[in-house]
């Protein structure tokens, strides 16, 4: 494995006095595709939002390439974030959603920004929607545009916070196809999801979050077949039951 991109040391986070994460430690290296699983309310989203800098942490530290980034989002797109609700900019066309941040933040000129946004939208199979406004797209299409927008900033790590939770079950596969393609290219990723079967195919590592900490950490094979953690077994049994 490559160098460490994200390092979380003794992270604690609580909401109005209720602990969500307690002295949590984790590391992500370049090229890893890490999925976080766990029951609703186990703190999966909170953990990745802390790493992204969208939540203030109570104690501990978060390092991006060895530098402390606790509670700051000023990483200039180095951490790419894909949200549950897409959060596309509705007043920008699809193409502009990708090209405007390039112009505004990275100071690309118009033709370079347009070229790059077309390339990325082609990659997520959304080039034909270039001139459309996001509100005229389906949820799955919007999410793929959001992925292209985050990729445009050439993030060192992409974080997906339940990227398919607000989509119809039939549509989430198209988003996972895109994520799976990125995994093949070696993009470092951290994915929070309930759809364990979908990420199982391409995740290099799975973390099981329970009782405010990471209770199990290993390859998909280890998590699904070898770990003897009772909570994990119980959780997987439940999820599989729901999946059928």
């Amino acid at each position, binding site marked *: 494995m490559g160098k460490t991109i994200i390092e979380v040391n003794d992270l604690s986070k609580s909401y109005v006095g209720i602990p969500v994460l307690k002295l949590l430690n984790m590391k992500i290296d370049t090229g890893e595709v890490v999925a976080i699983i766990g029951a609703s309310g186990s703190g999966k989203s909170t953990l990745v939002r802390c790493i992204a800098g969208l939540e203030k942490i109570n104690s501990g530290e978060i390092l991006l390439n060895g530098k402390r980034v606790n509670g700051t*989002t000023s990483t200039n797109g180095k951490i790419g974030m894909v949200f549950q609700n897409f*959060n596309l*900019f*509705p007043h920008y066309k699809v193409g502009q959603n990708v090209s405007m*941040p390039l112009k505004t933040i990275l100071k690309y000129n118009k033709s370079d920004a347009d070229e790059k946004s077309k390339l990325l939208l082609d990659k997520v199979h959304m080039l034909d929607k270039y001139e459309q406004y996001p*509100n005229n797209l389906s949820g799955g299409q919007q999410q793929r545009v959001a992925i292209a927008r985050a990729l445009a900033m050439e993030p060192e790590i992409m974080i997906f916070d339940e990227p398919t939770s607000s989509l119809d079950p039939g549509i989430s596969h198209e988003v996972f196809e895109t994520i799976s393609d990125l995994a093949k290219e070696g993009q470092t990723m951290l994915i929070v999801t309930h759809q364990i079967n979908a990420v199982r195919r391409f995740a290099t590592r799975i973390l099981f979050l329970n009782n405010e900490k990471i209770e199990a950490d290993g390859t998909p094979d280890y998590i699904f077949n070898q770990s003897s953690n009772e909570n994990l077994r119980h959780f997987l049994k439940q999820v599989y039951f729901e999946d059928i």
Partner: protein
Amino acid sequence: MRNLDFTVIKPFLHLLPSAIAITLKIGIGAFILTLIIAVIVGSLRTRKLHRIIHFILSAYVEFFRGTPLMIQLFIMYYGLPSFGIKIGTITASILTMGLNSGAYLSEVVRASILSIDKGQYEAAAMLGYSNIQTTMHIILPQSLRIAVPSFMNGFSSIIKETSITSVLPIVELTKLGNQIYAKTYHPFEIYITMAVVYFAMTYFVTFFARWVERRSSVWVKQ
């Protein structure tokens, strides 16, 4: 009841264009000032500010919302010269009406900014937008669309409220009406004519408003 005779206005018709020009000058000037004030004050008031700035902005909004426009006009035109500040009638009218409507509409801007989903701020932050870039590129374009109907209402109101400036030594539409009335004693014909002229102007604003609303809403779900 005597017969209506609209021809009494005829000898004064040549005065109408300059009165309309002054009314429009005040109306449009005040509207532009309103836009600037409302956007700046409205967006500032959605932020955490220094206590003193917060107090000044609140005091401004409350003063202009809580006192009559005519009194504000008197303070601006007759009151300020006591402190050595002398301004012309048109300038005083534009300033007063702009500050007055700006106070009202800054609240509309504030509310429309607060109605933008926090996910928009988060997405912008993750892409590396600074606070000011987020406001300028992401939040204001969306919230101003929400505010457009209120702004256009405000524009109509300003055009109509310019009639209050007739209390100053200035011959805009209403004052012209008063003067013609004093010479002809035909109040009904004269004020109906003035009403029609005001209506024509605000009707034009309504058309303009529809155009602006259409233009600014192209991205809303169809």
